[in-house]
């Protein structure tokens, strides 16, 4: 099948309007005859389910958590971008589009990104109308903050809990439709297959996680808003339950998987403290506005710190290496995420890491505390030379800005970050890759849609801060509900889809057989044993810095680990009960397939772009020496993989990226 993005013709700024004017609609009476399944209830899935129900479709929504409100969108901290230009600082749809395409290292589809920028302002209006309590100024109007990699203030926020407030907004819209009976909600249900009938997605097989029952659900279309696959690394900032299963099952039923190797490794996370670690915690990017990142200049200081003989505050200013400020004087501590992460790794690999494992750098607020303290003393007419007073005033300012993050840090690490620098290290955070979709957000399986982090579409090879929330809500509130009508307009006479077809039978049997195999395997190792092993391979060989040799080894090692898993995994309990280990086993089995495709994709992309850094592709001379080198001549395309059995047999399809409205440049932050 040729990859057709179905991007509308015409000038960039008119494409979405023209497209909406020209697609088919379903009249309100007919919408009542059409069923849609939405899997996942985060910002994308939750907002889509609510909006589709408002339009009149019959919606069935599914989440594996005990309530739709638990979806991992809830953990987003910093904010949501929108081209409102409330600050009058020159923002526009074009500028948001430009920043997003550039930030993504020119690996996203222009038309999709422009549409995202275009609907961004509506998102803020919609959320405010729903009662989302965004931060406000004293005049009662909405406040903004700035985020990495851009020159304007366009980020709307609700303290350090923006994701929570936006998700509760979508959840409230969903609740209203559940109350009206237009959405039937299935909590604690996990999708385990997509059912394709006559070439169209017509339903899913789901497992009731409380009773273990296997259920058939039919619909005229299926929408996946099932998030990203960062947990393939075992340790990530994702929730424990976040998984690739729904997306992977879709892939196995014909949906191409695009750019699996594009992963965002976030620079400011709390470092790993030991082998028992189950997940990693992010510290918002906003901290880099005031925190300075450093390691000691001299190896003897590093050793003394690790042995506990010196404290970071004992290291004199001239003996500190503020390596981001040194390497990137123009952007300093506010370089984009991929650049900051690689720089931390470079220092730690060179032996300068400051904790016992050697994998941590300092994020230091002492200068900001001094600066703010002096400013406050001046404003209040107090003694600017009183060191204790300055510190106290400065700490108060920092507390107002980042109090909840500092509290979280102290609870986890048991150190007071007002007195001693934070320790941070990069961690897997977000996956830009995902299911390939066309302009209508439809996958290569007709009637199967993917939205939010689950699709690949808008962030290219690197996502900018505060853009994930924007994309999730754009897809769910404003894009999918329109584009799906074009497809469903052909189904107004179809009538209800039966679950008594051979296709449903086959899919259900598949699911049952796999579950039986897992619970009867009686191996010797737990699911986590395999998941941790997979995570180690991914982190060491497919992590922040990749090369052909390591990637080829990773492909082999993951394949071998998968074979070992199926031979030796031990799943306690039975299939017909609440069985967390069984649910985990199914997810890890899918990660073991995805991981291999991930490594294969990284191996084939012999260029460095965004979060994907190949050691073979670096600038060899000039000012940019040692920095990532993109190869537009050979790799300016989306890599979409078709399932053919084993991950090693996946077939590559290319969607060439055309840039008509933006000039391709090297990203320089020097």
């Amino acid at each position, binding site marked *: 099948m040729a990859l057709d993005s179905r991007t509308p013709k015409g000038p960039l700024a008119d494409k979405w309007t023209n497209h909406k004017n020209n697609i088919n609609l379903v009249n309100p009476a007919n919408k009542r005859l059409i069923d849609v399944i939405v899997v996942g209830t985060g910002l994308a899935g939750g907002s889509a389910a609510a909006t589709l129900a408002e339009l009149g479709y019959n919606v069935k929504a599914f989440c594996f958590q005990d309530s739709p409100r638990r979806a991992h969108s809830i953990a987003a901290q910093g904010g949501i971008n929108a081209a409102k230009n409330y600050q009058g600082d020159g923002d526009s749809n074009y500028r948001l589009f430009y920043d997003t395409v550039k930030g993504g290292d020119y690996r996203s589809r222009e038309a999709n990104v422009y549409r995202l920028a275009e609907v961004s302002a509506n998102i803020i209006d919609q959320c405010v109308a729903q009662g989302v309590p965004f931060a406000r100024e004293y005049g009662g109007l909405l406040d903004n903050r700035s985020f990495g990699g851009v020159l304007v203030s366009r980020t709307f926020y609700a303290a350090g809990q923006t994701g929570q407030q936006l998700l509760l907004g979508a959840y*409230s819209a969903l609740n209203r439709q559940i109350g009206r009976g237009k959405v039937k909600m299935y909590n604690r249900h996990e999708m385990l297959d997509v059912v394709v009938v006559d070439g169209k997605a017509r339903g899913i097989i789901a497992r009731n996680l409380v009773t273990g029952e296997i259920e058939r659900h039919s619909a005229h279309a299926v929408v996946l808003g099932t998030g990203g696959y960062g947990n393939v690394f075992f340790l990530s900032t994702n929730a424990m339950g976040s998984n690739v299963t729904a997306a992977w099952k879709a892939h196995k039923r014909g949906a191409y998987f695009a750019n699996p190797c594009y992963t965002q490794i976030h620079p400011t996370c709390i470092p790993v403290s030991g082998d028992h670690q189950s997940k990693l915690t992010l510290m918002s990017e906003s901290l880099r506005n005031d925190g300075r990142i450093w390691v000691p200049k001299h190896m003897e200081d590093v050793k003394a710190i690790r042995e506990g003989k010196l404290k970071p505050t004992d290291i004199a200013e001239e003996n500190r290496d503020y390596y981001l400020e040194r390497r990137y004087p123009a952007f300093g501590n506010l370089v984009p995420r991929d650049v900051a992460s690689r720089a931390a790794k470079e220092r730690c690999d060179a032996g300068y890491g400051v904790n016992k494992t050697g994998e941590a750098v300092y994020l230091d607020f002492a200068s900001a505390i001094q600066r703010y303290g002096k400013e406050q003393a001046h404003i209040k007419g107090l003694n600017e030379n009183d060191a204790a007073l300055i510190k106290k005033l400065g700490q108060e300012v920092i507390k107002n800005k980042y109090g909840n993050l500092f509290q979280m840090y102290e609870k986890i690490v*048991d150190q007071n970050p007002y007195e001693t620098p934070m320790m941070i290290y990069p961690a897997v955070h977000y996956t830009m890759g995902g299911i390939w979709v066309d302009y209508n957000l439809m996958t290569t399986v007709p009637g199967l849609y993917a939205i939010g982090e689950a699709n690949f579409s808008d962030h290219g090879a690197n996502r900018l801060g505060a853009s994930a929330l924007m994309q999730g809500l754009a897809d769910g509130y404003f894009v999918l509900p329109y584009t799906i009508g074009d497809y469903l307009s052909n189904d107004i006479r179809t009538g209800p889809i039966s679950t008594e077809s051979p296709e449903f039978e086959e899919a259900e049997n598949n699911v049952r057989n796999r579950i039986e195999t897992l619970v009867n395997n009686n191996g010797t190792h737990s699911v986590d044993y395999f998941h941790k092993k997979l995570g180690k391979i991914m982190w060491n060989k497919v992590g922040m810095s990749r090369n052909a040799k390591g990637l080829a080894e990773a492909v082999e090692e993951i394949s071998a680990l998968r074979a070992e898993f199926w031979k030796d995994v031990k799943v*306690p309990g039975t299939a017909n009960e609440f069985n967390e280990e069984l649910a985990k086993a199914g997810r890890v089995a899918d990660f073991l397939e995805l991981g291999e495709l991930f490594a294969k994709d990284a191996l084939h992309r012999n260029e460095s772009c965004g979060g994907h850094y190949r050691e073979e592709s670096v600038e060899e001379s000039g000012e940019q020496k040692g920095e990532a080198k993109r190869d537009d001549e050979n790799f300016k395309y989306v890599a979409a993989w078709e399932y053919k059995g084993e991950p090693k047999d996946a077939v590559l399809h290319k969607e060439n990226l055309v840039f008509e409205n933006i000039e391709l440049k090297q990203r320089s932050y020097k």
Partner: protein
Amino acid sequence: MNLTLKIWRQKDANDKGKMVDYPITGIEPDMSFLEMLDVLNEALINKGEEPVAFDHDCREGICGMCSLYINGEAHGPDRGVTTCQLHMRMFNDGDTIYIEPFRAAAFPVIKDLVVDRSAFDRIQHAGGFISVNTSGNTIDANAIPVNKHDADTAFDAATCIGCGACVASCKNSSAMLFVGAKVSQFALLPQGKVEATDRVLNMVKQMDEEGFGNCTNTGACEVECPKGISLENIARMNREYLKAAFKG
């Protein structure tokens, strides 16, 4: 650290359930409470026993999925944190730790430490929203200025994560802190005032139908709330309710 865990085990909703002792060794102070349970479960699986079921997801204190009643306190002895953010350094070597599910008639046990909190969802279905459809032409977000104090107070109420610690801590199993927080968030914002009467009546009615108790101003909920939701929200809900009841 070496500990003795006394954990509630209950096969399913119909089982009677009982406390079971588990000695555990090699626990590090830097582990979170749930990571300590991960260690226990790994050991149980390796011995061929069934692991202890407990709810959890984000493990960073925001999703509200984790619960647990630890030594008689919802989310354990630390303040301002959920169980996933409770660390073992809060305990001492040799301690005995009692771990039970959140208990309330409206929160039936599903298995071991997992309870069904869908009653909270149903209260929200009854009125926890502002009736506005999604469209591309809602009024501009800045068209209605909101007093900063009201906006901040609404935000404080909205930080509730719906974990149910308030219900588990209350001697009456009352859900009034939870419901009060939602009612307050909307009552404080101009967008929410239009439906304020119906909202509070419908949500309180559903709350009562779910079998939650009433508030007798003990304040345990506020103490145990991991997000510090204030009792003022209950007072505000009561005022809203009275106002609405008089309006009929």
